């Protein structure tokens, strides 16, 4: 039975480049700690799937797209700083 997931993320990275790798790790850690596994992360490598990046209007990597809950928000960087994500998720005040 498929569980209902509260949060959906799409993370665009450029291969194994340093900030991309950091971003994947940071996102995974944050989700595990705060979102209690009620989440789904899709990692998209712009080197492999550039058309999806263009479609989503991604100009820079790493870039995180918060798909749900809406509205869609974009966050650029290695996600070292959790504040912008928390804000984007509506979990803390701007």
């Amino acid at each position: 039975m498929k569980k209902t997931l509260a949060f959906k993320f799409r993370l665009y990275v450029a291969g194994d480049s340093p900030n991309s790798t950091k971003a994947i790790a940071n996102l995974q850690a944050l989700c595990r700690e705060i979102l209690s596994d009620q989440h789904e992360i899709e990692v998209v490598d712009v080197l492999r799937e550039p058309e999806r990046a263009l479609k989503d209007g991604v100009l820079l990597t790493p870039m995180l797209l918060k798909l749900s809950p809406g509205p869609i928000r974009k966050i650029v960087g290695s996600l070292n700083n959790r504040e912008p994500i928390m804000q984007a998720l509506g979990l803390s005040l701007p």
Partner: protein
Amino acid sequence: MITSPAFVGNDQQDEIASLVRQLHETQKRLREMTGGEIDAVLLPDGQSYLLHEAQAQLQSSEATQRHLAETQVAILNALPANIALVDSHGTILSTNESWRRFATANALHGPEFAVGENYLDVCERATGNCSEEARATAAGIRRVLNKEVADFTMEYPCHSPTEKRWFLLRVSPMHEDKSGGAVVMHINITEQKLAAQEFEELSRRTDLRERLLSTALASMRDFAQIYDRSGRILFANQPLLDLWGLTLDQVVGRNFIELGYPVDLAQKLNMQLQKVFETGQEVTDETPYKSPTGVEGYYEYIFSPALSADGTVDFVIGSTRDVTLRKQEEAEVRFNEQRYRSLVQATTAIVWDTPASGEFTVEQPGWTSFTGQTFEELRGTGWLNAIHPEDRAETARVWSEAVTNRSRYTVEHRIQTPDKTYRNMFVRAVPILGEDGTIRQWIGIHTDITERKQLENQFLRAQRMESIGTLAGGIAHDLNNILAPILMAIDLLKLTATDPQAKDLLQTIGVSAKRGADIVRQVLSFARGVEGDRIEVQPQHLIADLENIIKDTFPKNIRLQFSLPEKPWMILGDPTQIHQILLNLCVNARDAMPHGGTLTVNLENCVLDEHYVAMNLQAKAGNYVQIGVTDTGMGMPPDILNKIFEPFFTTKGPNEGTGLGLSTVMAIVKSHGGNVNVYSEQGKGTTFRIYLPAAETSPGSAKTQTQDLTMPLGNGETILVIDDEASILDITTQTLTAFGYRVLCATDGAEAIALYAENKKNIALVLTDMAMPIMDGAAVIRALLRINPAVTIIAASGLKVTGDVTQIPAGGIKHFLMKPYTSGTLLKSIRSVLADSIKSD
């Protein structure tokens, strides 16, 4: 696009510079905007432009990755497991060196294990021995790939034709959260498996052995213990635990003291344990022991060393046995042995034992102390030397007969004592037979029967005497019957005879017949024994008579004392016999005083009351006349005193006494109903006291008898008696001496003449036998007449006329005595001849 630099013009140069500056600015601006946190920008054509920091990092990261991969491969190859990586479909992505080697070694499967093959298919297609395990492997991998399980582990055998093998299959996901394949590892665990199996087998066997051992130890009746070096119990079997009343847990690690052993026993045991540990030598001993449960017993134990590989003693094994019963039996045997020995020592007989050969092989204390033979002298057949030579043959014969029959034997022989005299022995020996019936040992007893033998001899002699007496009595009786008619006929003939010569003849026949009757009476008296007349006798007459005889005949160095009461009682008895016993006692008294002394004869009336009788069982209560005869001689030791009344016992030389004197005294007194007491002290003297019953008419009975007391007595005159027969000389001398004469004896004429020449002034009368060898009576008489023509001679002969009697001058012979003559006749003749010679003087 940058082409060859040759085509770059100045304008282009400036534009390029401007663009580069712009690119640099762009990058710088982007870095400023994103805080350096971006790697790439996406260009509108979909190309990515990596920022140069990311490019640089990516390059170094790739190198690192490559290095890491190489390292991982090396690690995988180094692992002793067959490892393959499979993708989510089970297709083999990669294998390590070990996998490949295994695949190569098991050539059959070779290509199927290679990269690109689907391992699941391979396993599921497998056939043969291990197909089951292969399918289980596939199922396991599938479950991991499907994330049904986090990982999968399975042990399985996969034996090759040449060896047994076991493997451990371990399947784990390749990535934690992706379902992207799995790591499949086959680890060869054959060694561990074999080791484990071996261990299992070993422990199973060890367990069994341990159980067997403890069962065996528990079922033993002996007590088993194991001690460590400090003397502490490591193990004790059930019987021992029961004896102690403890469990194994309670005793392990405890020492003797802690187990409540007495201190001295604990010390002894500890020392012995220590010795075993030090020397490696077994120790055997025994001890009494009382257990805490109160069981008391005697125990035999062995401490044995348990050696380690290097020869040192690891621990000591104790084995203890209850020997209480055996000890008790031993004590019993020792007691019996002791009892037997005591018995042997206590008996006066000789107890001996020999092996079947009859040769002495061990010391024989009884034999040695009896014979004086040392062990060296008696060993072997040396003991035969102690046996009287005349008896050896008979002893040997009886013994060899007993050996043949395996029977007991008895024999009599004489053995020599240390003082070289022989003792008569009665031998009884029994063989102890072995189980096979052969003789193993002889046990024998020598009993000293010397005294019994002597008594037997005396008895035989007495029997002979008795039968002679009986015979003589019978003859005497017949003779009486013959003599009676003769005597009666003579009396009748005297009445009718007128011829004086015939009257004389009748007179002579009558005298002879009377004499014959007298002899017969005497023989009858002897045959009847000591029974004599029983008439009332006045003892003072007997004593006076005795006094007269003794005064004249006993040596002068013997002082005489006679004492009588004023009115002595009468004795009922035979005066001759009483006279005989008194004389006998006085002669003994004289002989006891060879160097002189005092002889006391006293007479007393006495009443023996019940009190006296109680102290002297031989006596009867009543009135008695007691006659005591006391000397001051040497006395007698008790062992002789006990025997003096035995017939034939004498302390005198072979020809001096018959050994019948005192036994006759005893017999006569007994026949009178009296008894005899003896008091003797060595060195001081002896007293005989004779108790004769007083006549019932006593005291003061007037019935006096005078018979035989009218024998004429001499007055100490010396008479020379000549006879070649010693017995006649002896009896004559005794008679004359007893009746108041002194006697000189000569056994032949020459001696007589010499004696007479020497003593002619003292000799009042010569009594000579006529029939003598060499110098007959007539020759002697002639010689005497030559010395003294007035010599007074009485001649005795069995013949009326002997030899040259005619040559003797008339008057030379004063009187003729016919042999045999009685004492009375002799005394009367001497008295009358002497009276005549005095008158003629």
